[in-house]
């Protein structure tokens, strides 16, 4: 699919609970030409798991790598972010690795973020990146993936 063909997008970040899937479907079907945007969600490639769940429910969706979000915000393709957080506390919303990246980009582009209670258990994707094992150099290392806190003011 080309960018020009993609229509408006609802960005999904985090792991929706099963009960949320029907609401997502209603949202997408309420407006013509709208699709769910599913980023890859590295490092665990959770996007591939979510895409399968959307497929099962016949919810229209399109997949991207996480670093493609910038151009989609820049081109005003994303109308809303559904942020499935893990927990809330101390004026912060805790979500999966990359949550701060996504929410800050949405905030900077004035795209509304709807926080929704998401799944707290990460079920690893059945696929992996073919380099993940190979790139364990002795001298250098990888930045550890951890849950990230998003301040209230970014969500609002």
């Amino acid at each position, binding site marked *: *699919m080309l960018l020009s063909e993609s229509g408006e997008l609802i960005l999904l970040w985090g792991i929706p609970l099963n009960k949320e899937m029907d609401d997502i479907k209603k949202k997408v079907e309420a407006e013509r030409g709208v699709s769910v945007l599913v980023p890859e969600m590295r490092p665990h490639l959770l996007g591939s798991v979510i895409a399968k769940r959307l497929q099962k429910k016949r919810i229209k969706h399109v997949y991207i790598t996480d670093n493609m979000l*910038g151009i989609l915000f820049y081109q005003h393709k994303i109308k809303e972010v559904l942020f499935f957080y893990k927990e809330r506390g101390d004026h912060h919303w805790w979500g999966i690795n*990359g949550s701060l990246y996504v929410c800050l980009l949405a905030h900077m582009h004035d795209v509304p973020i709807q926080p929704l209670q998401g799944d707290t258990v990460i079920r690893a994707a059945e696929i992996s990146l073919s380099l993940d094992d190979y790139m364990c150099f002795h001298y250098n290392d990888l930045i550890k993936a951890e849950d990230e806190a998003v301040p209230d003011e970014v969500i609002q």
Partner: protein
Amino acid sequence: MDTPLAFPVRLQAENTIYVLDETKLPFEETYIEVKTLNDALKVLGQMKTRAFGQVLLFFYMCVLEGSVDDVTKAFQDTRPTFDFSLLADILKRRAKKTSTLKEAAESIIRGLDEQKRTRARRLAEILPRDAHILTICNVSGELIYLYEALKGIGKTATFFVSETRPYLQGTRLTFWELSRAHIPAHVLCDNQAAIVMKNGLINCVVTGSDRSTERGDIINKIGTYAIARLSRYFGIPLYVLIQFPSDIVVEAISIEERPAQEVFMWLDGKDPWPEALYPSFDITPSNFISGWIDILGEVRCS
């Protein structure tokens, strides 16, 4: 310290170009023989080489074909975002001062490597004493030159390399070349750019650019725009290595969109994959850039 990525394309034996297959790195270092324009277009279209490699391939292919215009059109059709017309102008201008196209191409290429080293030295002067540099994609060996230049003036550096999905140029090329040169580096998922900035791990960003305008807007690997916006948000300076800025409006440049199946090419898994988008570049407006260092080493700061 050396890296094959600093000079990934070579002309040998008068009629054969050897192209480092960057899609095979870091697993193997192999070279593809290119003898015809069709060979070159195949290599280019399949992303076997890019960045400085495609500049070298363009110049050498003009030498093999003995013509500049046909090669320019074919290259431009294959990779629409990169400005091969500008390279053609440079080559034609130089050819007026030399007796053969080959002499012209070789003199430009010799100059480019020295210019890249000069540019690295100029950038090193600007960066912090203990530079913690976030970078994206791969700038064809220039980070190695930058590290040497920083060391030469008593500074230190640690690189934070964004993996640069889907082709993983950050992990496969930059992280690999820094690691084999024993230069301190960490690799991060593209979506960790915000958290490493927030946690104070980064004090500058350095990136290359595939195109730039005289106004200072750039087009570079997908993901650059997000990093630029985040670095501005966190007050971290972003410096861009630019080649030959052109007098053009950035929005007029066509953004290459590659086949969707390439989004999944480094994943161990089976079809069917979901429908996907793959814009391979993005635009970063000049107001999110702190400084530009051109190929002659000239520095311009916002």
